[in-house]
């Protein structure tokens, strides 16, 4: 059944995009500004996965991609800290435009460094779960998309539990809603925001490693991922976390359907056109945003 396979593939893609969008919207809410380098954190996660597997292979070790996941998350979490240290911390009392501009510069630095270190050619990250398709109910499903759904789903559930069930998560939501008030109640807002950058980096890098097998890793892919996170957030209602996740799934479904019907190039072109349409016609997002319900 090609339709089931298409849907599973779309869900896998959507789950990875959801990781990208989640980190983007968490930083947006925490710092009150767009992190333009967000897509480059995705790219660097892919680079880390490729580099780690290449190094290990050179040492005679052929490990499945899943083993590299924790390493990739740690490395890209550190990248998130770098973005916070350069693009947010020195500018934390300035208007949001300052962070936006600083992260544009940072994105360029990341892209140039990756090009220098990695070369301009796309390379494939290792598969998370290698092998022939598994047959479920008579339908052959690729292992990589299934693993992707599982790993991304676990990461999303983990972040949900962190945000909704822990004091750190509550504090983070309070800071995102009203930073000044949160500080007047003793909350360490700056630490929480820097933590959001680290988490966003980890999630983005994880997505980069997960997507890098099928869609390859290349130094220049950052802006496209940033735009997808931006589109998902715009669709979902600027600042809404569940909205951004739904937006990410819709983008993936859209890309899969248009790629199947027309081509991947058309899928990208139409995606950016629909962003323009949403921004023009429904600036509050497809699902709007109830005032005060941002998280």
């Amino acid at each position, binding site marked *: 059944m090609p339709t089931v396979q298409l849907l599973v593939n779309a869900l896998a893609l959507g789950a990875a995009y959801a990781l990208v969008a989640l980190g983007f919207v968490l930083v947006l809410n925490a710092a009150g500004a767009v992190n333009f380098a967000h897509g480059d954190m995705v790219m660097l996660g892919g680079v880390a996965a490729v580099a780690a597997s290449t190094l290990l292979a050179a040492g005679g070790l052929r490990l499945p991609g899943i083993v590299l996941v924790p390493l990739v998350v740690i490395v890209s979490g550190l990248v998130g800290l770098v973005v916070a240290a350069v693009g947010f911390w020195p500018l934390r009392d300035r208007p949001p435009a300052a962070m936006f501009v600083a992260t544009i510069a940072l994105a360029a630095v990341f892209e140039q460094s990756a090009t220098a270190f990695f070369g301009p050619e796309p390379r494939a990250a290792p598969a998370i779960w290698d092998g022939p398709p598994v047959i479920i109910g008579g339908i052959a499903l690729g292992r990589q998309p299934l693993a992707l759904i599982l790993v991304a789903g676990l990461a999303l559930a983990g972040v949900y539990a962190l945000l909704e069930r822990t*004091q750190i998560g509550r504090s983070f939501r309070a800071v995102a809603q009203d930073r000044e008030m949160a*500080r007047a109640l003793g909350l360490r807002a700056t630490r929480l925001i820097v933590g959001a950058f680290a988490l966003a980096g980890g999630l983005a890098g994880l997505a980069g490693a997960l997507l890098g097998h099928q869609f390859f890793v290349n130094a220049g892919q950052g802006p496209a991922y940033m735009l997808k996170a931006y589109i998902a957030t715009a669709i979902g209602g600027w600042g809404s976390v569940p909205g951004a996740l739904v937006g990410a799934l819709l983008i993936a479904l859209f890309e899969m359907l248009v790629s199947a019907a027309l081509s991947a190039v058309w899928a990208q072109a139409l995606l950016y056109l629909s962003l323009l349409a949403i921004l023009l016609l429904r600036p509050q997002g497809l699902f709007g945003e109830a005032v005060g319900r941002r998280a």
Partner: protein
Amino acid sequence: MTTTLEIEGLTVAYGGAPVVDGVSLAVPAGSVVALLGANGAGKSSLMRAVMGLVPSTARRLAVDGRDLAGHPPERRADAGLGYVPEGRRVFAGLTVRENIEVAVDGAAGARAARVAEMLELFPDLAAKAGERAWRLSGGQQQMLAIARALARRPSVLLLDEPSLGLAPLIAAAVFARLRAVAESGVAVLLAEQNAARALAIADTAIVLAHGRVALVRPAAGLSADDEALAALLA
């Protein structure tokens, strides 16, 4: 009585002329000081400056004898300042319980116990503990803003126009609660437009005019329709 909040020569200027100009006042533990003044007199600016939310200068700014000069808001909260801002500013997307718990430090068990204590103190909130704060009425949000500040066991409570926008009966309930808070040993500084209501629970009244202290009087000796007071509040 020990003086809990001490302010000497506090000055706030937003770039231009000072809007709080050399104000000195003291709030003893267990008492309510009403901070009165017309629109724009500088009440909110004074409170925001004490909390460290706007830049200010002062000869002395201390809580329980500890100097707060130059400290960021979170350190001032740790030092014992509790703040109930103008407009309440509850965390709309958090539940009532979360709004209180987020303000409490410590291990999960200790936090839960403190939340339970606060909900016992504010029965209206207990009935809504699981609701998101944006769903509460204005009076309930005001109670939540007070409960959230008290949850940290502050030694000073700063309240900026807590009765604003509330129906008279609800406002009366809020003020009765504030008197009880003071009786429990907290130093309460209460900015209000409604002089009669504030004077009814205050020990001392301080009137600000154009950023300066224009009048300091025991509240008992002051009636809301006192001519000098009315002229200052006009």
